[in-house]
Structure formats: C-alpha cells, structure tokens
C-alpha cells in the first residue's frame, strides 16, 4: 500500500452512518407453532361467529358441535368401524398404484421404446377424472372391494408415473457414466445409482399421489359401501347434517396431515444425504 492517505485530512470529523442491512428475506423457514396457530385462530373465529349469530348455523356448523359429534362417533365405536375399511382401501389401493406407478416410471425413464409408447398414453390418462370411470370399474371389478381398490390405485398411478420418470431423468448422468466406467452391471447401476438418485423426486411425487388417493377414497365409497369415512360423509351430506359432514371431513384432513408427516419422516431418514 502507498503511504499517501486516500482522503485529504480535514479539520472536522466526517459524518458516520451505519450501512443499512438490505440482504434479508427470500429464505422461508418453517415455524411449527405458526401452522397450529392459524388452525386455532380460524376455529376460534368460527366458534365465536356462530355463537354470536354473526355466522348463521346454516352456513357453518359450530366447531364445538362438530367436536361433540366426533366424540359421540368415538364413544359409540363407530369411528373405528368407519376408519378400518377406509384405511384398508387406502392402503391396498395406494400401495398397488404407487408400486406399479414407480415401476412403470422407472421403465419409461430407462428404455426409449417404452418411453415413446407410454408417455403419450400416460398424458392421455392423466386428465381423465377417475371418478367418471367408477361405473366402468364396477363392471370390471364388481361392486365389492375390487372396484374401490382399482379406482384408488388408478388415481395414484398416473401422478406417480409422471413424478418417477421425471425423477429418473434428473439423475446425475455423470454418476451413471461413473458406474459404467467401473464396469458395474446394468442392474447394479439401476439399483445403486438410478433408484437412490431418483428417490427425492419419487417421494415428493408420492406426497401428491397419496393426497389424491384420499380424495378418491370418498368417491370410491359412493357406491355400495356401508362403512367407511367416505360413506359416512356422503350419508351426512345427503341429510344436510353439517356437523357429521364436518366431523368426517376433519378425519380426512387429519389423514392427509398424517400421511404427509409419514412421508416427511421417511424423507428425513432416507434423504439425509442431501445438502
């Protein structure tokens, strides 16, 4: 450095000012309690509104009444009578759809002919409202559990396929070249490089697929189901029994939160390697 001072020495000390900070924001964090607080506040507003008459009882059931209905449902044992078959349908249908979806997605991601053949087909199937096909499924698989499994499985299948082949496409090619350069077998490359590399995309696809499976659960129980959350909601809906309707809807929401929490847990365990 030179010895010459950069500024001319002045008699009065120069004015000082702290540089203002302008680098904040654009980095959202999750604060768990904020989410809970939003729920609590909304419920409290609804409770207060319905009590004061500001919200009429026909518009919205009183949350405390919904809670009471829920309590009755639980104490009468009906809750598990409805929940049991629903969870079974969800488990069988979603597992079937997700497994076939992941397999087909991986095949599309790996083979040119399968990709050329199936991508347009999947694009054609994706926008079909699966509910519209319910009569068809009843004819194919009967009015029993088969058609319900099929509807949920089919609804889970398409988003899983799309998410999976996009995830396989996004696997770092240099890792695959590395595997080839060390002479790994095709099957080893798929198992040890492609599948783990695609796992983040597959899991975030599963989040969406499973939410769709819960939506379709209600549709599947529209026909010939005596017990099930969907059947319960539909019965309540046809009687305009808003308390029971809401109690059922709350169960579905909780189911959604639970599924999402389970996937988040799997992600934390399986994807700990991500930076």
């Amino acid at each position, binding site marked *: 450095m030179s010895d010459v001072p950069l500024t001319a020495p002045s008699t009065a000390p120069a004015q000082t000012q702290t540089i203002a900070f302008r680098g904040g924001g654009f980095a959202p964090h999750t604060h768990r309690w904020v989410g809970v607080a939003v729920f609590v506040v909304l419920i409290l507003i609804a409770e207060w509104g319905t009590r004061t008459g500001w919200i009429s009882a026909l518009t919205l059931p009183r949350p405390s009444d919904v809670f009471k209905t829920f309590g009755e449902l639980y104490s009468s044992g009906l809750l598990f009578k409805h929940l049991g078959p629903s969870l079974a349908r969800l488990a069988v249908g979603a597992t079937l759809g997700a497994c076939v979806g992941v397999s087909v997605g991986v095949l599309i991601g790996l083979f040119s002919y399968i990709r050329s053949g199936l991508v347009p087909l999947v694009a054609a199937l994706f926008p079909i409202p699966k509910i519209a096909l319910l009569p068809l499924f009843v004819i194919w698989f009967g009015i029993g559990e088969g058609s319900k499994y099929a509807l949920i499985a089919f609804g889970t299948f398409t988003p899983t396929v799309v998410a999976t082949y996009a995830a396989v496409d996004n696997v770092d090619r240099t890792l695959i070249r590395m595997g080839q*350069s*060390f*002479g790994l077998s095709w099957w080893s490359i798929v198992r040890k490089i492609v599948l783990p590399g695609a796992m983040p995309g597959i899991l975030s696809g599963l989040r969406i697929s499973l939410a769709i499976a819960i939506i379709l659960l209600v549709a599947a129980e529209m026909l010939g189901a005596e017990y099930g959350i969907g059947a319960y909601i539909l019965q309540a809906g046809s009687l305009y029994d808003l308390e029971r309707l809401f109690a059922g809807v709350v169960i579905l929401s909780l189911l959604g939160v639970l599924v999402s929490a389970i996937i988040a847990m799997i992600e934390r365990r399986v994807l700990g390697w991500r930076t």
Partner: protein
Amino acid sequence: MDIRLESIHHSYKEFEVLRDITLDIPKGKIVCIVGPSGCGKSTLLRLIGGLEKPGAGRVVQVGAPPENCLNPLTYVFQDFALLPWRSVRGNISLVLEDHRIRGAEATRIIDDVLARTKLTDFADALPKQLSGGMKQRVAIARALAVNPAVMLMDEPLSALDSQTRELLMDDLVSLWCRQPFTAVYVTHNLHEAVRLGHSIVVLSRRPGRIREIVEIDTPLEERQMGDTDLDLKQKYLWQLMRDEARAADAELLNV
C-alpha cells in the same frame, strides 16, 4: 499393459473434434494431455476408456492387464462423481461389490486405499461433509481400489483451489513413487503438467491434432517449485499453446 492410439479421428455430426491422433501410453508413466479448452481432451479420454466409439482409427491394449486388476481402465472425474448417499467406505465398496468382493476382503482393500490416500479417519463421512480436496481423494481411493492398469484422469484438480491443488499434486507424486501407476492426465494447467507428466502431449485447437510431445526426464520426486529447468519447459509449453488458445478463444466467440 500399454495403450496405443492408432490414427484416431472423431466427429460429432459435421463437427470435427479430433484428427489423426497416434499416441503410445507406456506402462508406469504419466502422460499429460494439454490443449486449449474445447480441443477434444475429454473426448479423447472417453475414447480411450471405451465410453465412446471413435469415428475412425482404434484404441488398442498391448499386453494383458496385471493380475487381480478388477477394472483395467479407470476414470477419475473432474467433478468427483461420488454417490452422495453413500459414505466414503460405501463409495469405494460400490466398485468392489460387482466383483463379488465383500466382507473381510473388501474391508482389507478399502482400509488399504484409505490409508494410502490418508482418509482413514473419514471412512464413515458422507460426501457432503467433505471438502473438495477430500472428495477428490475419495475418488482417487476408489480408483486405486480396483487396481487399475491405466488411470484416466480428466482435469482431476480443476475444481479445487490452488493450495489444495498443490497438496493433492504432492499426494499423487508420493502415490506414484511408492507404486508407479500408468495414467493419462488431462489438464489445461501447465504447472500441473510439468509437475506430474513424464511426457506432455500438446494438442492444437479444434480439430485437435498432436502439435508436439514434450518429454521431461527429471524424476517426479525431484521436481520442486522454482526448478529452473521445469520453469523453462512450462514457458516453452505456454509459447506453444498461446496462439492456439487465443485463436480457440476467438473462435468460441464466433459460434
């Protein structure tokens, strides 16, 4: 085992990348390939290792690879190519598993290569916990684990800062001195080339042809920083490359 390239030509569609490359890679020597960027160095390395087919000419292997060599032609990549979901140990065991090497035998090999690359304490770390220099040492350990006949290194130190690069060059030299290996070492850094190369192949700008092969006789372990002889060689190489590099640079702008 030696490698011989016999008049290799290569093009991508109409785009000629390599022209008439004939080159010998003798056993136990490090051959450096330098040239301006885009002249086809990485392409040449992919051709040597069989990751790509040459348009004309052929790559031949002279003699048999040594016994207990699992993967004769083994790459070390510029971006490390480590599996982020496997630990250091897991990344090395990946290349042994397909050769049915598991259990005690695998542990022996992995411990040996980790010791040789000074990684013993990091065996269970994940790649995201390692610095760039460490990651490249893991990649080198992985390459050593398959006991390669020829190591194909594509700018292995280019992603690292200059201090780490010096340290890793020292490591490579001591690895070679303890147990000479054969390597094709692609770089655009002439300092690396004169430090590590027994011979240095200068490629012209695209289409890459061999402009000159510069031999350096000073043994690797005696090459110090500030060695006037090496400095002269480096200066000479830079003179060879300067015009090519400038022309290549101008060419890229015209694309």
